[in-house]
């Protein structure tokens, strides 16, 4: 069984973790096209190489980011999510009609 280095708990058996999918930026829910939105919801990049993923250490419900080489099946680096997500994210609904006002979708 693989060992995953949890930034909070140190090296642990992979059994203690769940995979949370790739780190992908959500498109602006008000301004993206239906196709862009569908692609975000349903499609995976499935890169052969280094990917950035969400992992959760289940006993502590702690989410972190891992960079993993999917070809070599190796974890390269793991770190706290705050390294990537530093700012509070705000959502605003654009004033009708749609698309007229700027909206502050971050991340």
């Amino acid at each position, binding site marked *: 069984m693989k060992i995953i280095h949890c930034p909070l708990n140190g090296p*642990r058996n992979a059994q203690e973790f769940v995979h949370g999918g790739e780190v992908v930026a959500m498109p602006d829910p008000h301004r993206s096209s239906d196709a862009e939105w569908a692609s975000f919801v349903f499609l995976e990049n499935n890169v052969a190489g280094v990917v950035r993923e969400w992992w959760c250490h289940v006993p502590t419900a702690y989410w972190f980011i891992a960079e993993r080489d999917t070809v070599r099946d190796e974890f390269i680096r793991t770190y706290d999510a705050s390294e990537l997500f530093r700012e509070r994210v705000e959502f605003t609904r654009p004033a009708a009609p749609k698309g007229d006002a700027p909206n502050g979708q971050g991340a």
Partner: protein
Amino acid sequence: MSLNPIDRRARSFLYRELMAAGASFAEINGQACAMRFGSDSLAELARARAMAICDLSPLRRTGYKGWATAEWLAAQGCRIEDAPNRVYGQDDGARIARLSRGEFVVLSDLAQSTTLPDRLDGAWSIASANGCFRVPRTDSSAWVVITGEHAASMFAKVCGVDLRPHTFVNHSIAQTSLARMNAIICRSDIGGTLAFDVVFDLASSVYLWGAFLDAMQEFGGKPVGLEAIRTLAGV
């Protein structure tokens, strides 16, 4: 005459197991706590030194979490350092387990001489909470202590983390899976005897208690009462 656990409103989830094993109870914090099993206190003490489990669920404990919790606890006079997954002893015997940057469990001492959990809970309110939130650890989590020279070997049968005494040093914490249930394991030796506090989901009390007894059978392990543990601690 031993107290009957059902004579008090608050009850350990393990009281039936403890009664069946022949516990004598006394009141602690308004509920029945198993103080001893049988009359041979020397044998019980010897067991506590070799391989034993003791239900500490009636003992006071509390928890706090949130982004500003460390600051709030410090303001309440608690001494804690930055490293997570460590147990920080307090002057009055209380222990604060730092689980992460923002989450803490406060355990009282075996003699129940500390007032820290009550003091903190008294000082806190939702109205004044500022990034620090109370976690009802007394209600959400069972608390047992596993003691004795065989304790680490017993854990090796239910836990995938290396808890051998020379790698998992005193005051270390492992938040992991125990017999497939999430648990917090804190090493806090008692008077020179290897000891692990285990704080885990209250609802799995009966299940994990059974798993522990099963795993400690080969080491002759059995439940002991609080008195034996207090004797280990010299209180």
